[in-house]
């Protein structure tokens, strides 16, 4: 029984949160990797672009709530997501037309494009703060829990409860759906193949009649979907705060590089690697060991490898280690 308790404890405090956080990172990391693979630059505006999309979902959710529209037991934000994605894609295409396309046509070095994306980051951040302000906002409504700790305890008769928040399940399910559709699109459709060809070898792709404008357009559309959904899921799960989104850019970059930048499968897995590492290394295992060890060996310290303050530092350290030993990422392989 103690063993089952220990497992439930781990599930509740590490596995589920890590899966959720990992899914959110994975969506962001695929966004980074896609831009890097097809458009060939590191997009420093990643976090703020995610925040920008989420902002519209938040505002529309407030609007819908004030009009009295809701989505039953699901969060209203899901209803507003398509609109937010649409605005996000429009914004990205505008930015691309006025800013990025000039450098792409000129074939500027990637560093210059990265620098330009810093400018976009400043502008996006300013727009977000001017439109919605820097404060913390919650926009989750509907059913909060799918399974409550007490119910689980009654059901199974265990000491440890298992809490499943609706946002956790929603995040994991939506991520699986979106990522599978995306991979299907990239691998099985003609447009997806042409995108991969463009990413592999631009000159050859152009030679075989692939329209670069279409590839760029599709890339931004997929990027807009990923960024907005990732941002909304994160905001539903925690809360919406522009500054936090900017900071999330860093573990997202770490995930993309750990997975091998330019490789969406790698980015997807990289998100989970980072999330699991962050949560498993900062979890205090005291209770876990009290369950599985005999009474005589019960630990008296927290058995915490690193304090939770260093959550971010862990993902960055993983990145540094990966860069040292395998600069092309763990899941090396072809570009998209």
């Amino acid at each position, binding site marked *: 029984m103690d063993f089952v308790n220990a497992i439930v404890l781990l599930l509740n405090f590490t596995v589920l949160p890590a899966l959720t956080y990992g899914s959110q990172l994975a969506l962001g990391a695929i966004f980074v990797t896609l831009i890097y693979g097809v458009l060939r630059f*590191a997009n420093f505006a990643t976090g703020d672009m995610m925040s920008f999309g989420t902002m519209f979902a938040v505002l529309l959710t407030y609007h819908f709530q004030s009009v009295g529209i809701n989505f039953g037991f699901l969060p209203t934000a899901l209803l507003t997501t398509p609109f937010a994605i649409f605005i996000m894609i429009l914004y990205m295409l505008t930015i691309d037309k006025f800013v990025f396309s000039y450098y792409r046509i000129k074939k500027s070095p990637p560093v210059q494009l990265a620098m330009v994306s810093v400018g*976009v980051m400043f*502008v996006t*951040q*300013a727009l977000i*703060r*001017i439109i919605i302000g820097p404060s913390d906002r919650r926009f989750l409504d509907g059913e909060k829990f799918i399974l409550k700790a007490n119910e689980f305890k009654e059901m199974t008769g265990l000491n440890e409860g298992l809490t499943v928040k609706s946002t956790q399940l929603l995040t994991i399910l939506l991520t699986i759906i979106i990522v599978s559709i995306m991979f299907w699109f990239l691998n099985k459709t003609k447009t997806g193949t042409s995108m991969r060809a463009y990413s592999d070898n631009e000159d050859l792709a152009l030679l075989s009649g692939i329209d670069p404008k279409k590839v760029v357009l599709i890339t931004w559309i997929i990027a807009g979907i990923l960024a907005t959904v990732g941002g909304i899921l994160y905001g539903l799960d925690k809360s919406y705060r522009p500054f936090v989104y900017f900071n999330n850019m*860093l573990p997202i970059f770490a995930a993309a590089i750990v997975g091998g930048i330019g490789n969406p499968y790698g980015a997807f897995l990289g998100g989970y690697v980072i999330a699991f590492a962050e949560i498993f290394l900062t979890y205090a295992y005291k209770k876990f060991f009290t369950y599985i060890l005999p009474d005589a060996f019960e630990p008296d310290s927290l058995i915490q490898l690193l304090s939770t303050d260093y959550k971010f*530092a862990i993902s960055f350290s993983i990145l540094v280690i990966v*860069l040292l030993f395998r600069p092309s990422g763990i899941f090396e392989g072809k570009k998209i």
Partner: protein
Amino acid sequence: MMQYKNVIVAYSIMIILIILVGVFQSWSIALSILNYCLISAVMTIGANIQWGYAGLINFGIMGYTALGGLAVVLISVAPVPEAWDAGGIRLIICLILIILIILLIKFLSRKFRDFKNKTLIISLIIIAGIILIRFISAPAIENIESIDPAKTGFLGGLGLPILLSWIVGGLFAAGVAFVIGKIALGLRADYLAIATLLIAEIIVSIIKHEDWLARGVKNVIGLKRPAPYEIDLQNSQWFINLVEKFNSSKLNFTNSAAEYQNLLTQYVIDASSVYVKLCFTGLFLIIVISLLILTQRALYSPWGRKMRAIRDNEIAASAMGKNIVKEHLLIFVLGSAIVGLAGAMMVTNDGLFTPGSYRPMRYTFVIWVMVIVGGTGNNFGAILGGFAVWFLWVQAAPISLFLIEFLTSHLPETNELKVHLINSAPYFRFLIIGIGLLLIMRYRPQGILPEKIVKQ
């Protein structure tokens, strides 16, 4: 002389702008803007050495700035003897252990170069070392942090003069940059940018959360100063006499002795703050000018030509027998040291060390905007960028507030849009800086004062 025409014009505009602030707002504000401009200029000189001379993209400026600030605390704050008694020895043991582990790893990796499980053994040693160090240091840290946590709760510094800490700040940054450079300099440009950005974040999070070192987010206040204190000035006779002499024409218009005294006290208070800031300005000016002379000489020396050659064509430079890895490491360390010096200057100027305020937006990206706007590869340009962007950064809020008021003047005071815009005036600085950067990158990619190659 003609080649410096642009420089002179640009600098005159900058100086006039600062004087205008002095005339219209106050001299105290103008001087604090000027001081921060000078600090930013030191940072941009550092970043420009790396980016402009060698083409190395370093997004870790925030980390080196924080290290410089940490140096000020560790050097100038008086030591806390109780804390040293409570856990000093254990921490020193830990330090020795860390050095031993590093030496051991170096020795192993050299001795068993071809051994199969080398990585595994080294990582095992590191993990064992971390567990051992945590085991030894945990009680010491707890003891130290529990000693008067509201005031100290840390080991304190060495109690040495604060100017020494500027040099130490540079050395700290240089040391860390050496390690980072060894790790990351082999990476491609954009990887290097991301890696340095994240490593800087690690440095800051260590400073933030190791309270025994520098109080972490509890901040260290009341640092020493290389300049006199306002309160001492206000009580010293020579200063009052000086102010009296300086303002004698205005003071003579007063009617009664009491009024005269009141006015004089007011002048003395104002003047003391200006005097202190002037002292800082003088110190910073010495640093900026000597750095400018040094970097300028370096740029036109054979070494500078070598760096430019490496930047423009690495393959050709290495074919000519230049050691690119070594030169890159050297310039990475040099630039970071200058940024560390700037970090120490900034903390000295503020008189307080606030690890929570180190954010990549303000300390990395804004500095980069300065370098790019000012002119990469041109030291005069980099300094100008530091001045212009910092000036905009500070004055953007008042300027945008004025513009909003002007554009919405036809709207009633209670109009929702108007109120919202006025409340968000501080955020327009990001917009102005961002659009400025985008415009410069598009229409003048070399910056306001482009790089000039002088043929000798």
